[in-house]
């Protein structure tokens, strides 16, 4: 909107927006700040905002006591594995729905979406039982499969909306130019789809990273990712604000950074292309 706005008006907007923005962000900021305090400073009354002795001690303790690296590694494997597996399965499906649509394409897409609506708790026990019987309980492989399945509809949808933006004429041109199906995928479609695939990857990695129903219910010790690691702090004996903050900061920092890159894709991915 190219409208003339007075400087005062802009200044007012800026002040209000920044105040609200900082207020919303404050819990995260507070957590990060607290993670650098000593336990005593963390619960000091009145609270100390900046003027404390910065220390990295909490991070060392958290790592040492709870083997943070193992949980982190589990999170990376589970979120990364399920996303990559999902993409591998979804790319051909989304490709064919976008470029060779049939009368049933729309129904299939909607049906896929409907599986996403299935409340997890409704199928908790069957999955739990199947996991026990297949020896998958508390295994990373099991969680990779489950998280892949719950995110597969979103992955297919996102890729589908991206692929649909690639004009069909370009693929036809490639066919006229003598490209085989393999060459078409390799030289034309993939390079053009890379941005879309990357965004899909990113958003689904975030969703899988933060997933906290199956990760809490299907893991115990070995395969527990960061969601479960943090949940273990809910027991009273774990109540050390500074250490909790350090653990929390470590759990959310990677995803906050990734998330900021994926704002735009977030809208598309979570509304199934209904809002762009």
């Amino acid at each position, binding site marked *: 909107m*190219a*409208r003339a*706005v007075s400087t005062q008006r*802009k200044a007012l*907007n*800026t002040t*209000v*927006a*920044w105040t609200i*923005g900082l207020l*919303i962000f404050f*819990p995260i900021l*507070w*957590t990060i700040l607290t993670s650098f305090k000593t336990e005593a400073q*963390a619960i000091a*009354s009145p*609270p100390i905002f900046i003027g404390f002795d910065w220390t990295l001690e909490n991070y060392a303790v958290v790592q040492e006591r709870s083997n943070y690296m193992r949980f982190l590694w589990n999170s990376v494997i589970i979120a990364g594995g399920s996303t990559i597996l999902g993409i591998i*399965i979804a790319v*051909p*499906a989304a490709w*064919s*729905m976008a470029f*060779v649509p049939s009368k049933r394409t729309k129904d299939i897409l*909607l*049906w*896929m*979406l409907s*599986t*996403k*609506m*299935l*409340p997890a*708790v*409704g199928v*908790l*026990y*069957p999955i739990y039982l199947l996991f026990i019987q297949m020896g998958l309980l508390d295994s990373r492989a099991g969680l990779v499969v489950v998280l892949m399945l719950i995110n*597969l*509809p979103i992955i297919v949808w996102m890729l589908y909306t991206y692929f649909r933006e690639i004009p069909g004429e370009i693929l*036809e041109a490639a066919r006229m130019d003598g490209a085989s199906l393999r060459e078409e995928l390799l030289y034309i479609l993939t390079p053009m789809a890379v941005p879309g695939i990357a965004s899909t990857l990113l958003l689904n990695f975030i969703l899988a*990273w933060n997933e*906290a129903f199956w990760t*809490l219910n299907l893991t115990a010790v070995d395969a527990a990712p960061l*969601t479960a690691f943090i*949940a273990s702090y*809910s027991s009273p004996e774990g109540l050390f*604000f500074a250490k*909790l*903050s350090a653990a929390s900061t470590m759990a*959310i920092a990677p995803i906050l950074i990734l*998330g*900021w890159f994926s*704002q735009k894709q*977030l*809208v598309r991915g*979570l*509304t199934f*292309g*209904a*809002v762009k």
Partner: protein
Amino acid sequence: MATQHSRSAARLMMAPAVILLMGWMLVPLTMTIYFSFKRYLPLRGGDLGWTGFDNYVRFVTSTAFWPSVQATLVIVGGVLVITVVLGILLAMLLDQPMWGQGVVRILVIAPFFVMPTVSALVWKNMFMDPVNGLFAHLWRFFGAEPIAWLSEASMTSIIMIVSWQWLPFATLILLTAIQSLDSEQLEAAEMDGAPLLKKFYHIILPHLGRAITIVILIQTIFLLSIFAEIFVTTGGAFGTRTLTYLIFQRVLESQNVGLGSAGGVYAIILANIVAIFLMRIVGKNLDA
């Protein structure tokens, strides 16, 4: 646009995704329905035979059922109202010209990327703790008696936490929708002399209608199944036991699988009612 050859290739390429999702849907669903007609207590005798609709009746007649429905509705409703209303206001604010718009946007969106267990624990301890929480400090500063948030105002607390997580989502989607508003429309309204409030009611709000509907539907789907936020805060106590949490307790804590499965079937039906509306909108969008 296709030839016969590409059509059969397409079907083959779709197969893995379709088959996997079909299995993911049908196998557990069938098992849940199967268990729901059984008296099945894995730790207390296992499979004790068929009971017909007994579990379904017992689930809804148990004293925990109606309170859990109420808790679910209050949480979902409360969060929806807060996130949609604040979301619209925030989106309109962020659409205004200002300095550092990009940074503010990032600040507002950040909570969405915080994993549910972290946000629940941070709120629970560092803000809502009756002794050391920031709120307690704030209350004391104003001379008030600190509140034991999660026991005395448990529902309010949960709604606050969940709203904080979902406000970014609502804001972001509504902001995207506002930005797609044709500025010529607003300029035309300005030429016609419409005051700000009229512009909001007659142009901005109708334009946002679809986006608001989508926010409501998608959030409802996710909110119906919030789990971690309750799991690490109240553990379902103090009136915060939602339908999802109740079923979880029946299945995994008290290991009454038959009863829990009947509850699961109710939850599936409930989610599907919401889903139908969402699918209609999404489906319409597909044709466009």
